[in-house]
């Protein structure tokens, strides 16, 4: 299933406010935890691997630099 990129939220301001409200009063570590939980819950809801891959790629756009290559070679 391709990722929807056209607007779909009936009440965008309401959604945004709810998201901000959820983060209110949290320090940055707790906020990060909240976001992580949300991503996991929503990813499971979407379920489709291809859609998730597309979403990850889209979210990663413009966030250079690229990850360094994996550690390789015969090192201790």
């Amino acid at each position, binding site marked *: 299933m391709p990722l929807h990129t056209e607007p779909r939220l009936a009440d965008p301001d309401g959604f945004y406010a709810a998201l901000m409200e959820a983060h209110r009063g949290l320090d940055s*570590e707790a906020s*990060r*935890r909240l*976001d*992580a*939980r949300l*991503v*996991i*819950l929503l990813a*499971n809801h979407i379920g489709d691997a291809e859609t998730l891959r597309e979403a990850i790629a889209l979210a990663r756009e413009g966030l250079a630099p690229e990850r360094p290559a*994996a*550690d*390789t*070679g*015969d*090192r*201790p």
Partner: protein
Amino acid sequence: MPGTYANPRYPFRRPAALDHGRVEEAGVAVVGAGVVGLTVALDLARRGLRVVLLDEDDTVSFGSRAICWAKRTLEIYGRLGLGARLLEKGVTWNTGRVFFRDREAYSFNLLPEEGHEYPAFVNLQQYYVEEWLVDACEATGLVDLRWKSRVAAVEPRADGALLGVETPEGGYRLHAAWLLACDGARSLVRESLGLPFLGQVFRDRFLIADVVMRAAFPAERRFWFDPPFHPGQSVLLHRQPDDLWRIDFQLGWDADPEEEKRPERVRARVAAMLGPDIPFDLEWVSVYTFRCRRIGRFRHGRVLFLGDAAHQVSPFGARGGNGGVQDADNLGWKLAAVLRGEAPEALLDSYDAERVPAADENILNSARSTDFITPKNEAARAYRDAVLELAGRHALARPLVNSGRLSRPAVLAASPLSTPDAVPWGEGLPLGASAPDAPVQRDGEPDWLLRHIGADGGFTLLCFGQGSEAPPGIARLVVSAVPAPGALWDHSGLAARRFGAGPGDCLLLRPDQHLAARFRGGATAEAVRAARDRALAIPNRRGAA
């Protein structure tokens, strides 16, 4: 330090080559009598081949390393005559339980379905397995076990390899037509051939403590993330026989290994975990780091690499030893077929084609587990903790919890030895998978299906009901839905279901019990022979490519 086990010391036997001074000739030489070298030597000997097995030491594994032996390994040792012994002495477990901080996050059953001779896992110290393998090798009369024999030089040749062997009584040279390198992670054979390891090193350290205690923990795998008694790190607990328990403490990269091995320090860690009321003795302590890596190819002409000499993984998932035993299982029958002139040498290329992807699967799984257990950055830790928190309350997060994806038999999915299905098969065992077990009855006696597959060392045509004939040289095994003389009665229907087979179907299984071909509604002897030839890498008789 070990108190529950005394390492046997095997005698050095002076080889004739030390006296006559000529180059000794051997058909097959195995370097390294670790668990993998012993397994492949035993497999070859049971196929009637003579093997020279060289080890620099004079005993089995000192201190415990591997403890978890997977169902497939037990099945392989069943075929080699040691399965019952492992099952009897080992601690059987099927359940894994994961804790986060002070509460249980989730548990899993690795063998949710009845009807297998062997459990998902038994825990047993590596030295027992090796000791029994040594005894079994000796009993064949075909394994020339040479202790205190260090291979110090290896020269690969078109017709085998020339070894320089050093012993307490001097050195000699041995030419082996085939050389199996089972000399572990620091393989000298690998170095001599200039083969680099490719892969990943993990920046973490782990403390292994084997403790003797009488404790009431059940026989299951317990894994803690960030527990109160070892904050910020993980801990793994396994039960072994002899009231021995394996505790694995994650230490982090900055830990000082020497300091961490000090008995007082280890005792304090263990006491924090067990509480003040459980007395224990420390039996073994070590600190290790690990890597996930392999060499590029496992076959180099007449030299073949198995076990840790070919690939290494992190211990989470118990894929090291279990993977190596599958290497031995894969190579044994192939090398025997080549040496008996039944198959071309090209068959050995399939060892590479089948076991390299299997090693990659083990590396991938154990690397992913390690990434979960040792988060590399803040984001990774936030996601890891989020998964663990959610898992306690919501089933959806449980599949994401990764405390080790435990060893499974490799499905040789892209094997060149498999014959593609003529018609789509649908449900059931995929091609290249190892045969599932099932309870059966033979002449009114309870029995197990796997005991009869590859029992004579060769290929098996598994026939559901009468019908197909096996060509000469292939054992025919009939599984019947009703009691019938000479057939295995599939009284529970599990055999048919697990293979996805119905009346009249037949399947061709390799000597290592992996599925090579299957025929809906049966097959002619000619079709079965063609599939067998393909599984032996014999070029098509009709000359087609």
